[in-house]
């Protein structure tokens, strides 16, 4: 089935996007990402360790940028200015790479997004030529505003970052999906393969996750489970589920030909 995810003019076969944080080591990171089938991987931009780093392996050696589409993020940024600065550095770091994940946080305790700063940063980044995939709350109005600004994908949370609480407001997600003309990806809060499948059945174009895989007891196995869940959820959405009825009086087996007493 030819069912590709289009983001900023590029087609992807996988609808699962994964983070690269919180793994035991780079070997496990790589094994989990291979099992997930993800083609887009998020990375953070941080100060380089100066001193005692010679020969130390780097993430890029395990995940060559030629093999994956990097999605540099602005995790840890609490203002539009910091987020824009971080992504300009990322663009330089990745040779002019334009596809980025914008997230501006509002509170270190919950990591809830600050949508006012997010909107300000999105405006600057779009004007500056970036392809912006934007993490936001599940507020349909904000999601629409971010689309109107020119973001290439909107990524509402299912629940708080790293919480694994699953989809707390499927109704809001449904409104966002209905209103959007750009891809909608659930980002943050997925805890299990079931959550990922539900997100796809709602009609999401994709799911971005990190902790659900990295913090599983067996991250590589969970990565494989997520791959299947995303595919199953997508196909279930496309196939169109049967309507829900309290009861149907329409059994699955024939009502005629029953063996009856003569």
């Amino acid at each position, binding site marked *: 089935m030819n069912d590709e995810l289009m983001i900023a003019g590029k087609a992807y076969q996988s609808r699962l996007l994964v983070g690269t944080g919180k793994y035991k080591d780079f070997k496990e990171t790589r094994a989990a990402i291979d099992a997930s089938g993800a083609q887009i991987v998020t990375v953070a*931009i941080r*100060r*380089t360790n100066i001193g005692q780093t010679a020969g130390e392996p780097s993430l890029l050696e395990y995940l060559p940028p030629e093999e994956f589409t990097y999605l540099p993020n602005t995790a840890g940024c609490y203002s539009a200015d910091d987020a824009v600065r971080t992504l300009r*550095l990322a663009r330089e770091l990745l040779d002019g790479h334009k596809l980025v994940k914008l997230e501006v946080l509002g509170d270190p305790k919950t990591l809830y997004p600050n949508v006012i700063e997010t909107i300000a940063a999105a405006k600057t980044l779009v004007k500056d030529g970036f392809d912006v995939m934007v993490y936001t709350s599940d507020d349909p109005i904000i999601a629409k505003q971010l689309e109107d600004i020119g973001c290439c994908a909107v990524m509402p949370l299912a629940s708080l970052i790293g919480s694994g609480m699953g989809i707390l407001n499927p109704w809001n997600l449904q409104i966002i999906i209905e209103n959007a003309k750009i891809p909608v990806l659930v980002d943050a809060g997925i805890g299990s393969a079931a959550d990922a499948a539900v997100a796809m059945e709602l009609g999401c174009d994709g799911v971005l996750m990190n902790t659900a895989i990295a913090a599983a007891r067996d991250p590589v196995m969970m990565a494989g489970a997520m791959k299947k869940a995303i595919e199953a959820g997508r196909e279930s959405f496309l196939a169109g589920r049967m309507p829900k009825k309290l009861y149907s009086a329409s059994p699955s087996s024939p009502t005629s030909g029953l063996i009856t007493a003569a």
Partner: protein
Amino acid sequence: MNIFINGNLKQLESENVTISALIVALNLTGKRLAIEKNGEIVPRSQFDSVNICDGDKLEIVSAVGGG
């Protein structure tokens, strides 16, 4: 001269060091980096030509695991 790298004071013996020379001195040769000097990004193509002066503030960043 004294410069600041990622917020830390660093003393360099020589004056007039290029960014490229600094990368070698810091043992970062071959690493994929982006560098900001006094708040402005220095494109990689200019690493050989841009000099570092006393008091400069540098940010040196790389890509790390993240979600």
